[in-house]
């Protein structure tokens, strides 16, 4: 029954956001939480069936269905969903299931779409539009910020004002470029035996150029 149900289309925006919130709860629940409750809740939403129909099934079947559902989740390759090293701080005014309200509010405000229409949007399309809304808002904010005195600090020593840019979300910052590999001529290498083992990966160790 589970397999048949899962063969449908991948979830649309509202359902996807709900599943993502349950995914977070499942991960948190591994640390003394109610893990089965959240896994069953996740599956119940994904399948559109009450968990009373499968809660007594062997645990392996439940875990297999869970993995299968995860594999059907759309793969999003947008900068807005790129992982960040920054610690996420929950807003004081946040509440359970806020992501849907926040995103639907942004889309409705900017495009005038109804909540029913927004809930059925394809996930990638909705997130791409949300990204554009955030970029727009950020650039506008940066423009007005640049006009204010708060954006500049005066350095008395150099007698020059320094511009302090408005911080951007991690996915709007320039990407790190890969470290370039280059060879060092033998004559430029240090004299004697230099033990570099374990200090840098082998591929970055200086290699003599053969003439």
């Amino acid at each position, binding site marked *: 029954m589970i397999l048949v149900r899962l063969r449908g289309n991948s979830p649309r925006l509202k359902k996807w956001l709900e599943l993502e919130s349950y995914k977070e709860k*499942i*991960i948190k629940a*591994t*640390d*003394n939480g109610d*893990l*089965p409750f959240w*896994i*069953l809740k996740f599956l119940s939403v994904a399948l559109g069936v009450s968990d009373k129909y499968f*809660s*007594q*099934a*062997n*645990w*392996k079947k*439940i*875990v297999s269905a869970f993995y299968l559902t995860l594999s059907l989740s759309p793969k999003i390759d947008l900068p807005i969903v790129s992982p960040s090293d920054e610690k996420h701080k929950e807003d004081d005014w946040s509440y359970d299931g806020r992501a849907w309200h926040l995103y639907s509010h942004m889309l409705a405000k900017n495009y005038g779409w109804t909540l029913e229409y927004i809930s059925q949007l394809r996930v990638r399309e909705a997130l791409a539009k949300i990204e554009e809304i955030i970029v727009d808002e950020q650039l506008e904010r940066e423009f007005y910020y640049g006009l204010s005195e708060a954006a500049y600090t005066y350095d008395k020593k150099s007698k020059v004002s320094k511009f302090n840019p408005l911080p951007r979300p991690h996915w709007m910052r320039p990407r790190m470029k890969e470290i370039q590999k280059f060879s060092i001529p033998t004559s430029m290498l240090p004299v004697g035996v230099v033990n570099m083992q374990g200090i840098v990966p082998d591929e970055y160790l200086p290699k003599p150029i053969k003439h």
Partner: protein
Amino acid sequence: MNISPNQLNIEQMWELYNLLKLGVGDNNQYLIDEISGMLDKISPQNFRQSLLLLYNNFSEDKLNPVQILTMFILGLKMNEFFQFCDFVKALNGST
């Protein structure tokens, strides 16, 4: 008494995991090493409770220690307990 272990659902498996988790994590190559390591670390109460989960009408009075231990090993093996431990570890990113 029914000698074949129960097929645990996810709630029972989570309960079993919480009873035995203090003894999990040595990643021994052999099941017997894993279980002997586990028995060193878990309390007798948790051991007894896990057997009550694994078998209906479990009664230690009618069994000798070897039978109890065999039942415990069989119950964990039939329910693929260590696979469940790997699933939980994968979820919280500890593997």
